[in-house]
């Protein structure tokens, strides 16, 4: 359980985040929607303290983590991050990039001498398998395509064996087909390891498709927090003030309805199946 309590960040007079409170259950896939400048990135970077928040607490499994060295290490070990620009070290091999995820627990001197415990190399290889990239383990990171690099980015985050994963617009620079692949790997692998995900997205359709819960952020405040089926045209208008593109609103509406009917169909099918089982029993 990750709890974010009263998180706020101001830059001078500008309040980027205002009193954001969220609690995320283990294994939950949460998508944050919001216009550019709404504070999505700031929110994520305040959670793992890449940016120092002005106020607020991050509570991991009931322990409030402050900004002292020991807590920071504990926080960053539990919270992994995926970046828009992948942020792989281009001249290093894929495997070594994934091993970066293990580094919080490794001896600085031995790892600097390029010596890694076999167990950690095994974990890294396993994480590469989860995103179907183990065949490229020895390639240099800059030899991969954008989508492949982001999958390695996911593997690096998985290698931390975190409780919680932050994804800052992980598919913003990828084409639609690759985006879908990357998001599918992200969701699948996090489900396998019961990792909660907080993922910033710009694409409303992906948000509605992949999210189990949508958080709408506008001008540093949460304006919606609920299931994707509740994201109506009005909700979208409140997240993106001034957006009056009938196409987007229409598409969102249709997606939501389709999803709702699909969910209802699944429930109905489940009911039928359980009835059938009941009869057989």
């Amino acid at each position, binding site marked *: 359980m990750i709890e974010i309590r009263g998180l706020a960040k101001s830059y001078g007079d500008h309040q980027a985040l205002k009193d954001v409170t969220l609690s995320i259950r283990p294994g939950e896939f949460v998508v944050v929607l919001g216009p550019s400048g709404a504070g999505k990135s700031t929110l994520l970077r305040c959670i793992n303290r890449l940016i120092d928040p002005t106020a607020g607490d991050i509570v991991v499994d009931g322990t409030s983590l402050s900004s002292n060295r020991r807590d920071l290490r504990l926080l960053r070990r539990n919270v992994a991050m995926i970046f828009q620009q992948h942020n792989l070290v281009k001249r*290093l091999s894929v495997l070594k990039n994934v091993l970066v995820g293990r580094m919080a627990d490794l001896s600085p001197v031995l790892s600097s001498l390029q010596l890694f415990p076999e167990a950690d190399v095994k974990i890294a290889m396993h994480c590469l398998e989860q995103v179907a990239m183990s065949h490229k383990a020895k390639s240099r990171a800059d030899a991969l395509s954008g989508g492949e690099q982001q999958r390695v980015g996911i593997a690096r985050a998985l290698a931390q064996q975190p409780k919680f994963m932050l994804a800052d617009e992980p598919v913003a620079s990828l084409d639609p087909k690759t985006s879908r692949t990357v998001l599918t790997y992200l969701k699948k692998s996090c489900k396998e390891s019961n990792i909660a995900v907080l993922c910033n997205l710009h694409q409303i359709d992906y948000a509605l498709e992949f999210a189990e819960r949508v958080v709408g952020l506008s001008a540093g405040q949460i304006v919606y927090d609920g299931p994707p089926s509740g994201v109506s045209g009005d909700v979208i208008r409140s997240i993106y003030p001034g957006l009056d593109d009938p196409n987007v609103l229409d598409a969102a509406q249709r997606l939501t309805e389709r999803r709702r009917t699909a969910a209802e169909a699944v429930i109905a099918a489940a009911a039928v199946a359980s009835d059938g089982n009941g009869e057989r029993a």
Partner: protein
Amino acid sequence: MSLQFVVNKPRGPLGWWILAPILGATLAILWWSAQGTHLSITGFIDGLPWIADFIGRMLPPNFAFMQKLVKPAVETVQIALWGTLLGIVLALPVCFFAARNLSPYAWVFHGLRQVLNVMRGINEIILALIFVAAVGLGPFAGVLAIALHGAGMLGKFFAEAIEEIDEGPLDALRAAGAGTLQRIVFGVLPQVLPTWIGVVLYRFETNIRVSTVLGMVGAGGIGFELISSMKLFAYEDTAACVIVILVLVLATDLVSSKLRAMIR
């Protein structure tokens, strides 16, 4: 074909007239400097016969003298090699603190940059004179002079390379809980190494050129033979020295540019 002049008029109320004072000041400074340096075309033309006379005396070069130049030439390379290496050793620990993006405090960064400026500001020949006084005549003084000046150069270039890295991977390392040493080894070094190697090779080229003249102040190398042959008016020997120096410098340039092309 009709052409259009596509240049923005300078901003500000003066428009193009802003160029007049700039042009005027430039011309004035150049005129003043020409006076200071006794710049004179007639002086150069009058001197031409004497240059021809000097070159005439150097010909033919005394190729037999080259036998005596092998040892000093090798010494020149040795001075450049160790001067460069010690320069790297001095610059390495400093450069991380002299890079704006890694330095823990602004005053550390500013202070170290000034230290590097001072080291770089003093010419190798002057440093060599000081070290000759300290450790005596010979190549070791040359090594120390090149090392100190080179450390100032390398420290600055190393630090500038660090300032130009993509900080995204550093964020990723920080987010993964990696420590300082790990961030440097896995985040900084892979990004700066190609640039650093290029800088070191360029520095080695420069140091070869410098160490060919260090001998003039008694700090070892082929420069000593050059200056003594001139003092003895043995200009054919001087020509031999010049040829050996040229070969040395050109060979180093060739090797180092080949090596630099190999780094990706």
